[in-house]
């Protein structure tokens, strides 16, 4: 299984519908300070079910919705979709893709979708249980966080190995 594409609308600094298609090898994103690179990482994390606004650099979940600029109004909701390719030649073609979608409104309501059908976060978590996608502490390393893998306390190191075990 691999991540085929990321679709963002209204999340942080991406008010317009934006898509990134990924290589099955190495995809790199570059650009000047503050242009939105780490926001893409936050979007992936959020779509996978991250519940802590703090881990997404916000103080409340509301901070994640595009909040406008000097020339553009704020939006009322944010939506991020992750499209996975099962890369399984035994499945019929129309079962090859899995799309998970998370949406959040300023009112605080949030929704999850699996292939455009509403579902609970649990359905998504269970789907990915054996694949290793999700919240492995070692599959997503945020900016400035790599040294933490070493500086962490022995108890925290244990958690990393328990996840991999």
């Amino acid at each position: 299984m691999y991540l085929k594409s990321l679709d963002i609308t209204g999340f942080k600094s991406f008010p317009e519908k934006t898509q990134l298609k990924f290589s099955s090898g190495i995809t790199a994103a570059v650009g000047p300070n503050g242009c939105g690179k780490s926001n893409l990482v936050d979007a992936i994390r959020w779509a996978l079910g991250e519940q802590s606004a703090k881990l997404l650099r916000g103080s409340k979940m509301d901070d994640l919705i595009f909040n406008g600029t000097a020339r553009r109004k704020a939006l009322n909701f944010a939506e991020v979709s992750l499209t996975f390719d099962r890369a399984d030649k035994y499945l019929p073609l129309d079962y090859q893709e899995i799309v998970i979608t998370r949406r959040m409104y300023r009112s605080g309501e949030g929704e999850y979708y699996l292939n455009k059908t509403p579902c609970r976060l649990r359905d998504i978590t269970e789907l990915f249980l054996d694949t290793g996608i999700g919240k492995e502490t070692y599959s997503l390393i945020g900016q400035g966080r790599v040294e933490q893998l070493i500086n962490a306390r022995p108890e925290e190191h244990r958690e990393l190995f328990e996840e991999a075990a």
Partner: protein
Amino acid sequence: MEKKFLQALQAIEKNFLEIFAQLFGGGQAFLKLTDPDNVLESGIEIIAQPPGKKLQNISLLSGGEKALTAIALLFAVLQYKPVPFCVLDEIDSSLDDSNLSRYIRFLKRYAAGTQFIVITHRRKTMEEADVLYGITMEEQGISKVVSLNLNQKAG
């Protein structure tokens, strides 16, 4: 339960030792149980010794050495239990040029089995990408994505 955890720890340590030596061009690294008599609750300590240097508390390592040791540990875990994709945000920023080259060699090797999505500002890392995106903010505060052709990228 305890057996499964110990097996994982030993396998990852073996990978860690090998990968550390390759990334540092020598030296040693270990994973040590802080409480060997209580495997079910023991913490794990990371021990690392760059080539030619004496073994000391890992806190004394330099910023770049800590980053490279963390990268060795990351690849060690990935080799034991692969994940479909791995997202890395500027983990190469404190590596000097020769460590950067060794890291990239590893990244390319592991990219055969794991998909990597990396944020970087290092030119050498950009050059190894199969797909490269430029993120821009031409209109202030609005992010846009541009496909960059690896052969014609600027600077």
